[in-house]
């Protein structure tokens, strides 16, 4: 057993943390993410320069990473720094494109000159691809898409949209360039879009790539779990500091047992969330991938909400203000549960996967 980061991963984490500390304080962040274009092209270029997108795929695919551990190391820092740049769509997109052999787009993404978002879910679909309704039909050399995609994170301003739709042979993936989107600001920052498709012209990347899609989504879920762990750790630090500074009745409120105990419970849950994320990372690509990922996404969803509610409560009125950095972490933690299937969706997925009994203990 060895739970330490490798030297390379530690360096990757350090350089990303340094970049965010130097360039992405909370005021800068908030100025960028709550208004159009909901992110900063400069920050995006900066992240690309450190090689973040390249770390999402392997050397053979044109990157220099690609393991679940690479992804989790990056997203933990993204969470700690509350970075709202649209990295999740890039992560899933670059992996899909690399797997489907679109080296031209992959190269542009790694260089930071192109950006993708992944349009999978629909208003009536939360987690399970079996329920997708959007349809694709072949029309000569082109394909036409019909249906509606919703909650496409990071879609505003994306150069390419990867759209999943039902074909005659399975679930295919289609490329739409510069689509017309209905976009909005998310409560936790960043932009989100809906796409209404009525015979929308698209390029077919694959007419059946369901398993590749499931893999990309699972990797996205691991990224969200790691992001949550980073955000939780920071929010708990903020809470611990606040309890130590804030005076009431002539002493720091950290001296009150009622608050100490709640803080300790938050810490215990953070360790648990870190552990279950490690399990998902270690299990990616293995037999129990779906199971491990859903376990992690469920626990992260439940505990993200708990930790964010506790942090706001223990900060009192301050925790309710826009000015307070922790408030934005709290929002992000709750909203992570809404992305790529929430804790209820994932507990159902686990039950459907069957054999819910504990795997062997070793």
């Amino acid at each position, binding site marked *: *057993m060895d*739970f330490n980061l490798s030297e390379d991963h530690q360096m990757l984490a350090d350089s990303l943390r340094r970049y965010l500390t130097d360039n992405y304080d909370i005021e800068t962040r908030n100025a960028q993410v709550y208004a159009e274009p909901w992110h900063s092209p400069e920050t995006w270029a900066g992240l690309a320069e450190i090689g973040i997108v390249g770390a999402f795929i392997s050397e053979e695919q044109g990157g220099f990473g690609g393991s679940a551990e690479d992804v989790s190391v990056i997203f933990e820092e993204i969470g700690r720094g509350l970075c709202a740049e649209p990295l999740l769509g890039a992560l899933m997109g670059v992996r899909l494109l690399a797997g489907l052999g679109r080296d031209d787009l992959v190269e542009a993404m790694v260089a930071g000159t192109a950006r993708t978002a992944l349009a999978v879910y629909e208003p009536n679909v939360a987690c399970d691809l079996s329920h997708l309704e959007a349809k694709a039909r072949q029309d000569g050399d082109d394909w036409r898409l019909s249906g509606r995609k919703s909650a496409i994170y990071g879609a505003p301003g994306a150069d390419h949209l990867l759209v999943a739709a039902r074909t005659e042979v399975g679930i295919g993936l289609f490329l739409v360039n510069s689509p017309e989107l209905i976009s909005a600001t998310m409560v936790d920052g960043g932009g989100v879009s809906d796409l209404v498709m009525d015979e929308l012209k698209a390029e077919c990347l694959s007419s059946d790539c369901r398993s590749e899609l499931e893999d990309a989504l699972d990797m996205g879920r691991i990224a969200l779990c790691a992001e949550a762990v980073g955000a939780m750790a920071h929010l708990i630090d903020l809470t611990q500091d606040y309890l130590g500074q804030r005076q009431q009745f002539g002493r720091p409120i950290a001296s009150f047992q009622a608050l100490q105990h709640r*803080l300790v419970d938050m810490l215990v849950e953070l360790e648990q969330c870190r552990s279950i994320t490690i399990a998902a990372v270690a299990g990616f690509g293995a037999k129990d991938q779906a199971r491990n990922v859903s*376990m992690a996404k469920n626990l992260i969803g439940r505990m993200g909400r708990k930790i964010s509610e506790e942090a706001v409560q223990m900060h009192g009125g301050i925790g309710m203000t826009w000015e307070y950095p922790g408030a934005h972490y709290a929002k992000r933690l709750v909203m992570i549960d809404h992305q790529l299937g929430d804790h*209820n969706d994932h*507990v159902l997925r686990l*039950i459907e996967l069957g054999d819910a009994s*504990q795997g062997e203990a070793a």
Partner: protein
Amino acid sequence: MDLEFTSEERAFREEVRAFLKDNLPEELSEKVAAGKELSKEDLLRWQAILHERGWLAATWPEEYGGPGWSAVERHIFAEECALHSAPRLVPFGLNMLGPVLLKFGTEEQRREILPRILDGSDWWCQGYSEPGAGSDLASLKTRAVRDGDHYVVNGQKTWTTLGQHANKIFCLVRTSTEGKPQEGISFLLVDLDTPGVEMRPIRLIEGGHEVNEVFFTDARVPAANLVGEENQGWTIAKYLLTHERTNIAGTGFSIKDMERFHRLAGQITRDSRKIADNPIYAARAAEIEIELEALRITNLRMLANAKGGAAGGIESSMLKLKGTQVRQAIQDLYRSALGPQAAPMADELSENELTVPVEAARAAPAYFNNRKLSIFGGSNEIQRNIVAKELYRR
């Protein structure tokens, strides 16, 4: 990052498994699996089997009859024992007094006492808690007054687990009322045959007899039975509380209990549907299992840390907190899954009268009994205090 055990550790697990398969008597594991009470003979029988293999005193150095295991090996051993429904090892001599003597005792005390723990000649129990001093041990009142070569002990101890089987007790006693309350405490070994010592049973919430109270009335105890220096008892007590506890999360028990729940859920039908097919139970079970899986890994992370010498007391506090929460959640799930059939006090029914599997019959008593998990060994509130104190230590 590597979650795998080393090949040596995996081989060790296989060795433990093979040993348990060949040497754990079926009568004993069946009793444990069914949640039945084990007799003193049962417990000593298992202890003798382990002693013969040299595996009884997991934490002791080889020189004194321990197996010389690493923290990871101790963890693997404890987990496998739980998974195979081996009888519990009563910890008072093996994991409490033993380590205390190894650190604070005289060589003479070690040579005399440790072998008698191993071969079962002595059954030790613990005299820490008092009616007015549970987690707050500093306020304990049982007095030991020096009189020549003896201490004269007066007072009362309580929550003495399995004291009914014991012939010896180690106690924290007050030897001084000067200075801070924790400064006048000593660690004293008492023979339960000593005139003036009396043990009385306490009946517990579910009806069982597991704990006792012990009364001392002018009991004369040889001064040579003092461990460490007079008034050093607080240091010893603290050492015991932070002494490395590789099994404190109890993941083996929880994994086993969860297995039992799944077996039950596949057998019992309510409203013409198996419990296993009831979405509410399925979801509750899955969410508890997720926390258990996270705990299993948290435990391994902390073990890996301990190996590198970075262990702290707060890690065992955190493991105790979450470990007991998970175990209690499983007990609660198991009990509630039985519905109205959980109600009988199982000991009053003969096995052929039961309408549920025998192993399920003790679900409600076990649930009530296990409310103790978050109370004993330093209540969970005390564990939170320990962690919080560390967080704000400057």
